[in-house]
């Protein structure tokens, strides 16, 4: 199910305009520390190359959300 969902979510991200590489899944057992470190490091490097998330508040032309009554 996870594999199916990941394949779907990457496509959905692309559909809505978020780089699919921002999502990653790696299967690592608890005894595989080096593999885990490698997976995280390479993912972080990939994210750095992609730059800040377009979903960060206030970016990409969308007004920052406000609570009702905050006087927007």
């Amino acid at each position: 199910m996870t594999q199916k969902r990941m394949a779907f979510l990457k496509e959905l991200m692309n559909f809505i305009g978020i780089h699919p590489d921002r999502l990653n899944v790696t299967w690592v057992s608890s005894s595989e520390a080096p593999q885990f470190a490698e997976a995280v490091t390479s993912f972080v490097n990939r994210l750095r190359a992609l730059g800040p998330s377009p979903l960060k508040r206030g970016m990409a032309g969308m007004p920052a959300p406000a609570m009702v009554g905050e006087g927007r």
Partner: protein
Amino acid sequence: MNSIQQIVHALFLAEKIDGFLGYRKKDGHLLPHLFSPENPDELSALISDDPIPRYPLPKILVEISRAYPGVRVGLLARECDQRALNELVKLNQINPEKTLILPLPCCHSDLGEPTQCSYLQSPADNGCRPPFSPGEDGQDSARVELDALNLEDRLRSWKDEFSKCMKCYGCRNVCPVYVCKECSLEDEELIPAGQIPPDLTFHLVRATHLAGFCIDCGLCEEACPAGIPLRRFYQGGNRIVEKLFGYKPGKEGDRSPFHRLGLVEKGNLP
């Protein structure tokens, strides 16, 4: 009595059904109504000529069968309703043996006789319109344009649309395949109360949960007071499911690749 009224009357007389879900006019409004054999006189109010309104009757049927397990109900069903019923059967929400469908013709599609919607075969033939403005190739031209944008512009376009959202939950509430007893959209951690417009999360949760289940009836888009092109949005999710898994919701039999036991609690089926 006209033909539909006669059919229902005959079904009542033969004790085939305990109730019939259709539409009637009440205080000037065309509304869904459960007709019962106890009040046969009401049948003369059963609407069977255009304009026949469109409400999620299958969803009302789920409510009825939860409240009255084992009840046999007939209902007026357009093709979109029939697709919804098929999905609800797969989700264990409706007992097909207790459900009698009176098909309501719309336009022609590949799923059956006269019907309507995005499952249309040849929109031009019979005066039916597809649910979008088609380009030369018959595709949804706005969607084709959207697909051609780069990631950044596509995200901006969707964000513009969703910035109109006032989080009324109309899209969810009218959805015929939304029958969950708990909803992520009511999770305070995920969707903080009072925040308007909601984060993109709100819409992505819906897109994710509907992919492989949405029967593209378009009621969400009709219900949306902000005019967000929700139909195009959820069609996007379904297109992905079709591309990856070759599955299209709405037919009998095959289940969604995302179907899993426990997703929806079994309804009160007899």
